[in-house]
């Protein structure tokens, strides 16, 4: 019976119901999109790192996982590594920032192809001229590029020579020696990737490399990928918590306002219920149920919205961001919206529950 009344009340003011649920939904989407972007973008980084086909990664001394701006590995280290036991292929790259969070990767196409199995060209083909650039499909989609197009970065005009399938190390490639010269890193590398004759020799090979290059950071790809996580990005967790906090506050305000107006406008109805002998608990329970429904419907809407944001991101900025759907976070988002909503319903509910019955009926 109470449920019927709750349902009728929600239906009666359906515009308010839809708006409140949508607002709750938006804050749920905010959380889930942020989480989905964090997970997705990191996951994509991991996938691309694995996609290079390497078993071992060599980084210069004292560098951090994310943020690559220097190329302090002398090229002679690469030739040295190539001669170590079990090393099948080794290739060096230079990574250079080009504004925002974007960077360009210089590769030696020949050794890189042997390591990764080679690019799968969707259109076009390998570098032929010094101003050639290879982009992956997502990058091409985001920046509306096609083979033959002119593309400007690092204060230069480049020409797109090939569009490749995503998943191999990076999204934007130019020939290694060109980037070395351009970035004043002639003869230097940012990273060295090593592919072994047999992955079973990983331990042995790592040991040999460590012994030969004691100051360098040597990772197996598995280790390296495990380091690419939310915990290792400075500030990301705090940022997620801040967004959760904001969501609780927004949910609180939205539901507070919605329930407050609902209680004001239903003063008379609440008076009638009390005149019939309804207890304050019953009146409060009615509002709590209404709130829980708003929060749950809002959460469901918010989850649906994240499919929308994912679509938009994959449609418009797939080169910069990757969003995944993270069902593990659905209950957390639901909890966040419930907490915010119930806090918001607290004061209006208390006001309704202790309302004087006859005063309410005299209310015209």
């Amino acid at each position, binding site marked *: 019976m109470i449920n019927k009344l709750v349902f009728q009340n929600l239906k009666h003011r359906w515009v308010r119901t839809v708006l409140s649920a949508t607002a709750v939904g938006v804050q749920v989407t905010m959380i889930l999109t942020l989480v989905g972007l964090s997970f997705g973008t990191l996951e994509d980084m991991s996938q691309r790192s694995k996609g290079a086909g390497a078993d071992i990664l060599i980084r210069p001394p004292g560098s951090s996982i994310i943020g690559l701006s220097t190329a302090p590995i002398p090229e002679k280290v690469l030739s040295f590594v190539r001669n170590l036991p079990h090393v099948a292929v080794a290739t060096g790259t230079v990574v250079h920032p080009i504004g925002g969070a974007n960077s360009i990767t210089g590769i030696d196409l020949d050794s890189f192809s042997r390591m990764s199995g080679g690019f799968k060209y969707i259109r076009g083909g390998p570098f032929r001229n010094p101003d050639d650039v290879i982009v992956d499909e997502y990058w091409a989609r985001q920046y509306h590029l096609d083979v033959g197009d002119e593309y400007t970065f690092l204060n230069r005009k480049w020409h797109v020579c090939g569009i490749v399938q995503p998943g191999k190390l990076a999204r934007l490639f130019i020939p290694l020696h060109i980037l070395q010269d351009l970035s004043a890193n002639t003869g230097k590398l940012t990273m060295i990737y090593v592919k072994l004759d047999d992955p079973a020799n990983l331990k042995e090979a790592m040991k040999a490399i460590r012994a030969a290059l004691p100051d360098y950071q040597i990772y197996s790809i598995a280790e390296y990928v495990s380091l690419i996580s939310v915990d290792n990005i400075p500030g990301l967790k705090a940022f997620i918590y801040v967004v959760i906090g904001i969501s609780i506050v927004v949910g609180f305000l939205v539901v507070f306002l919605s329930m407050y107006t609902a209680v004001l406008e239903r003063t008379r109805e609440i008076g009638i219920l009390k005149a019939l002998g309804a207890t304050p608990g019953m009146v409060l329970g009615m509002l709590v149920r209404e709130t829980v429904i708003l929060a749950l419907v809002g959460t469901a809407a918010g989850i649906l919205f994240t499919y929308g944001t994912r679509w938009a991101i994959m449609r418009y900025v797939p080169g910069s961001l990757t969003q995944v759907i993270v069902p593990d976070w659905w209950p957390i988002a639901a909890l966040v919206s419930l907490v915010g909503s119930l806090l918001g319903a607290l004061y209006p509910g208390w006001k309704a529950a202790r309302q004087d*019955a006859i005063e309410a009926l005299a209310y015209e």
Partner: protein
Amino acid sequence: MSEPQPLIQVRNLAKIYRMGDVEVSALRGVDLTVQRGEFIAIVGPSGSGKSTLFYILGGLASASSGSVIIDGKELAHLSDTERTRIRRDLVGFVFQKYNLLPTLSARDNIEMAQYIAGQTHKPETAAWFRQTLELLGVGHRLNHKPRSLSGGEQQRVAIARAIVNHPALVLADEPTGNLDTENSEVVLKLLRDLNERTGQTILMITHNPEAAAYAHRIVHMRDGRIIHP
């Protein structure tokens, strides 16, 4: 043999409404005793305090001074919970303005009263109640919301809601105020029937002398007092 305890005993009851600086004395010393099983009509000019008296008897408003004893309990001494229990278990209220829940159908309005009293779907009352609804002429209008019912229909639904739980005390504030002669007669006979068959105590406010004639006794009010003309 001692007199049986009266159902209602009102002594020197006063009620002052305060609205900011303005004070309205709605009741100025009411004395009234109602025995169990009585059917009383209360008449008096508009503004004489009839509805106010009902609100206090029904536990909806509190008195400013004086004493109200219902079923042996002094209302002023009751906690909110106990007052709620009196409204729920003892009193059936027909409001002058009907006061149906606007978002619920007529049927749900009545069922809500049953639900609150914890008396949903008692089979032995179901047949009697269906008959009563037919008698009141609202049996075919039960799926409509109050908005699409006429004033008279809303009034009859409100009466049905007030009596569905068989309250010991029915407080009916102008139950025939919006009814034609024919329907008034139906309602008045129903009230008299309830009173005679089940011994329910009925207090009814009315402006209509013919309606008042159904009662055992008529109480006159004027300017917040009971008068004896």
